[in-house]
């Protein structure tokens, strides 16, 4: 079950986000989760013995992989990049203010 392996990757990311107490580790966890979801989309669109969905001249092609999930993953990758950039910026500002990445030492808010 290749889908299940992909979901295991997803769960490792979730575990990292929820358990680790370091800002950078949490960001890494978010990255892993994004990878897993993107991979899942690509797996969903794969077709056995399929070809890449790019046409060439003078060629009849029947068996192509699904182009739609690929388009969606492209969008999802960009969204992931945007999230990463913003969250790193915030983490760096937090480091600037507190002098640490350790979440247990960053507790101005009561929760």
């Amino acid at each position, binding site marked *: 079950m290749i889908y299940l392996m992909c979901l295991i990757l997803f769960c490792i990311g979730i575990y990292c986000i929820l358990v680790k107490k370091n800002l950078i580790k949490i960001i890494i966890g978010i990255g892993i989760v994004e990878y897993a979801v993107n991979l899942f989309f690509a797996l969903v669109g794969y077709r056995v013995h399929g070809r890449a969905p790019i046409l060439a001249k003078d060629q009849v092609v029947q068996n192509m992989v699904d182009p739609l*999930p690929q388009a969606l993953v492209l969008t999802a990758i960009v969204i992931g990049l945007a999230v990463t950039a*913003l969250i790193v910026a915030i983490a760096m500002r*937090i480091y600037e203010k507190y002098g640490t990445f350790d979440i247990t030492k960053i507790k101005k808010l009561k929760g």
Partner: protein
Amino acid sequence: MGSNLLPLFVAIPLGSAFLVSLLGKKLRGFPDTFSNLATFSLFTLSLLSLPLTKQLGTIVYKVGGWIPPIGICMVLDSLTSFMLVTINLVAFLVTIYSINYMEKYTAKWKFYTLFLLMLAGMNGIVVTGDMFNLFVFLEIGAISSYALVAFGVEQEELEASFKYMVMGSIASSFILLGIALLYSYTSSLNMADISRTLAQKVGGRLVFFVSALFIMGFGLKAALVPFHAWLPDAHPSAPAPISAMLSGVLIKALGVYALARIFFNVLGMTAKTSSILMVLGTISMVLGGLLALGQEDIKRLFAYSSISQIGYVVLGIGMGTTLGILAGLFHLFNHAVFKSLLFLNSGSIEYSTGTRDLRKMGGLTSKMPVTGYSCLVGSMSISGIPPLSGFWSKLLIVVAAIQAKHFIFASIAVLVSILTLAYYLKVQRLAFFGELRSSLTGIKEVPLTMKLSMIILSLICIFGGLILVPGVQKNFLNLATAVLVNGNNYAQTIFGSMK
């Protein structure tokens, strides 16, 4: 011609956001005037959409001219225009308020750019008829709100924003995973098409799993109780106009609307999901109320109260009966109005006195009459004092619960309403009545535009009950309710109106 209205709901805020970021740095007054113009035109357009949906029924707009399962479509039905009116009304009043309030912060043009992008995200979510498109616009709304929460770049704000962002990212990935599973199962992304395909299949386990993913994902966005931890930090940390937007409409557009649309119209509402939603709603109601009671920070108190009120909305919608949904939607509208009013009040207090701590206030009404009385109206409305708007929607929720024989939920709703009254009385007593503190004798009432939007919002609170007058109710609420009640007809309506 009428259907060309639809893309404008996204194109106007996007275009103005780009223009503000391009020109706003050089021209001083440009961001203010232009953003207000944009939100005003959006508000007018959303009002225009109301009679349009009444006349023409559901309007489907094919983006790029591609027929829906192939391309993306935008859908304008009554629920959509109801949400559009709510969102753009609050957004317009909040931009008026921001003209003066945001003088305290630097880089006003960045604020307006992010604000308009957030608005574009919310309008996009409401207007779209495509699963993945919903996700994309949800991310626009969410990412701009992450940045706006941290707009003050102080310690608490950055920390709250980080927490919000981590929770939001988890929610987004759950939602995206759910969409991937649904795509693989039905081979379609169009909501109507998915709903049509699901109706033909019998695959209980997958739909169940996807429902669980969506409840977790959108529940996080809506801050229902097991997933609420980010809200009490994020909402108070943002600048007051943004708190008003976040609590007033963002959690509803991203969370409640998306939940309602997906469960009623796409996946189909079952007894199981209905009871899950009702239980979650009730827990949110009680816990939010209890936690609010202990707060000393005025904005934190309002934030917990938001959780509690969202619980009411979800309880109402989760019941799935006609009256329940109607009451839920009505309460959604009312809450958008009075919660933004209350957050704007707290912003005014902070603007004048420089504190958010209730223990340091007192007797503010004598110095700031407009803020004081509008806050009184908002507080009484949210706690359900007749004849203000909040009373009617809460009454309807309780009646609907009794009608559906959920007596426990009904009695809890009544009790929480009393709880609500208790903590709002606390706000009134500590902040506005009593003796004026000596340290606060120098304060002044806030500038004109801030007063203006607070006055308008409190007027809506006072006369909000009039929405239940039969003529208005029929056009505004009943049609929107019908979209959800007849959820299973969604696919037929969409494909029917395309021909």
